[in-house]
């Protein structure tokens, strides 16, 4: 077993530099211009590695991610704007390639849903609180006593109202 392991290891260690079948991934060569490289890095975080699970090309070790990184750097070096780089990628791979979903017909709910929920939840709770503050009365003496008893006497006791509540 141990020998098998060692053979496997030897194969693994020997194989890595040349990577038998697959072509070696494009090496990462940072752009000489620091500002351009920073733009490229920022873009890497927003571009999905389309063959991976849920990884940005900034993180992925996959060959395709390396190729796309090289492509992005190439385009930035050629003077393309960030938006042009994105548009070009979307043309190649579809909206899927960007981690920022586009804002258009089918995605307005995605982008504005949170705001809608915020307004709905806020409005609903506000209204119900207002209604309550108008309608509700303070606890009656009997209810206060009842409350005090429930909180104080924490023992199992027979249910006071026999029928399931229909009040």
């Amino acid at each position, binding site marked *: 077993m141990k020998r098998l392991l060692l053979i496997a290891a030897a194969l693994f260690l020997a194989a890595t530099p040349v990577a038998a079948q697959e072509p070696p991934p494009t090496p990462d060569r940072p752009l000489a211009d620091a500002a351009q490289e920073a733009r490229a890095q920022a873009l890497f975080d927003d571009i999905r590695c389309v063959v991976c699970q849920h990884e940005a090309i900034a*993180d992925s070790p996959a060959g395709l991610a390396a190729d796309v990184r090289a492509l992005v750097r190439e385009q930035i070096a050629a003077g393309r704007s960030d938006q042009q780089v994105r548009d070009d990628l979307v043309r190649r791979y579809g*909206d899927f390639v960007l*981690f920022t979903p586009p804002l258009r017909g089918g995605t307005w709910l995605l*982008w504005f849903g949170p705001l809608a929920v915020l307004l709905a939840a806020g409005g609903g709770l506000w209204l119900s609180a207002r209604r309550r*503050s108008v309608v509700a009365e303070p606890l009656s003496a009997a209810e206060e006593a009842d409350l005090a008893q429930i909180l104080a006497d*924490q023992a199992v006791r027979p249910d006071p109202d026999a029928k399931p509540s229909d*009040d």
Partner: protein
Amino acid sequence: MTVELGAFALILALALATLQTGMAVAGRLRRSPVLAGAAEGAAWACAAAVALAFAALIQAFAASDFSVANVAANSHTDKPMLYKVAAAWGSHEGSLVLWCLVLTGFGALLTRARGLPFGLKTSAVATQGLLGVMFLAFAVFTSNPFERLDPAPFQGNSLNPLLQDPALAFHPPFLYAGYVGLSVCFSLAVAALIEGRANSSFWPAWGRWVRPWALASWAFLTVGITLGAFWAYYELGWGGWWFWDPVENASFMPWLAGAALLHSAVVTERRGALAGWTTFLALLAFTFSMLGAFLVRSGVLTSVHAFAVDPERGLMLLAILGATSGAAFALFAWRAPQLKGGGMFAPVSREGALVLNNVFLTAACATVLLGTLYPLILEAANGATISVGPPYFALTFVPLMAAACLIVPAGPLLAWKRGDLKGVGQRLALAAGLAILIALAGWMAFDPRKALSGAGIGLGAWLILGALAEVAERLRLFRVPLAECLRRARGLPLGAWGTTLAHAGLGVFVLGAVVETGYRVEAARPIAPGQTIEAGKWAVRLDSVGVVEGPNYLAEQGKLTVTLRDGGSPKTVTAERRFFPTGGQTTTEVGLDFRGLDDVYVVLGERGQTAEGAPAWNVRVWWNPWARLIFLGPAIMALGGLLSLLDRRLRLGVNRKPAA
């Protein structure tokens, strides 16, 4: 033999859960304490049976019994014992048994909750039993972990090496304790909808009954999620800790709903208000748990964490989710309008602040839900594929939570019913002033200057200082003699300390997350031994690379020295690339150098060549400033939850005379 015993115990548990449900329903309808008591006994027996099944499964894994299909698929004789045992919950089948164990275990504990009225308790036991029936049936009929293989293989397939990690060995038990602990809140909510009265004395008591379960689950979830994030941080080797991956989101939604529930239950307990809303959140929180289980196990999502993917089982889970949550929400729609809670309050009050907290948390939760499910819905609707990733959540979730964080310090200082905003403002003026100064200092101290990061640092400081201001206020610090302060500190209920800690922990987390995200520095290039790579103020030299042999892997191990750029304060770290021959997989073992609050994070990549053709290794280095706080913050939050849980006001029945 133990395997058959385990299989039998699982089936027995299903029978006992059925019995529990039946007897509890009958006991409730006939108002028979004997039947209800028997149902409670069945709940304990059921939990014991699942525990037995789980023990048998662990035993099979520990003994590497490859005649069990699940063991053969997920274990290997070369694995260290910890991972053999952890593999018991590393697969779909095994983790489902763990799920059932938590479900029935909490169900058994529920029968011990003292002070619950007969009807409410029996209905809750029945509901919990019904949940047990569904999940146990799911386990027994579709995911039996005890299935035998004939002939038994000589060796197993081993557990995914990425999962062979201490943080991940303990991540699922905590996560499940949280996920499934919420089932008790669910059952109590269903029971309240059945039994509840528009009686203003009922809801405060109910709020008190449901709160410990919500607290415990939330604290467990906090620990579980943090362990998972920590695992992703140092095991995936990407330098990040949260990717807004669908599976991460799936665990985050119950956490957010649970946090909202905790706060809204306080209002229900103290003031009898928001009864319907609290009930709704209790139903929602466990619904998100089940949704998470469905998303993770069905394979509808692509995720780095997806495991045990099987569409057919996914369909079954969807059916369980639809049946339980559908029925519960239908019950809610029918009954909630009849259940007026009492308690009026002015908009500016403790209740008002907690309502606002709930609005933001709910909206944040909805955002995560939208971001997670929208790609699925859109693809199903018109075939369009989109990706929803970090930039989306940065624009939607983060502002919502930032707004929620802004109001946190004010909440505990506001009085119930009608708060005095001016007074609270005065008490928080010092904290606010300091937070603004810290924001400015943070903005100036880090390079490059980023306004948003400065604001984020101020927000974190605001949370911490606000929590401190609240304690100072309660102790009347600097206004009464120190001895009096100490006396007050001793008299302060644990729950108050818990609140303070949890809010301060949130601030610690915000500080860490903001600084790490805003100012992490990354560098990567191939370097030969002896060469150096620089990231920010740190320089990392590759000293040597050798081959080492682990119990079930072989590794290229790099020794690297981390120093300041001028060569000061050197420290050695080791980073590995591990090769697991059993699965043919390679994993990275990150070299982490803890520098105060910062991490210097080193990943040894593939072997390549330098420009001159010498052998070199692709080394990636991150300088992650304040990264320690990201994991420390949630730990403090969980500790706060634990403290609150120990508060004797929440320990039902304790200190009270047993009933005559």
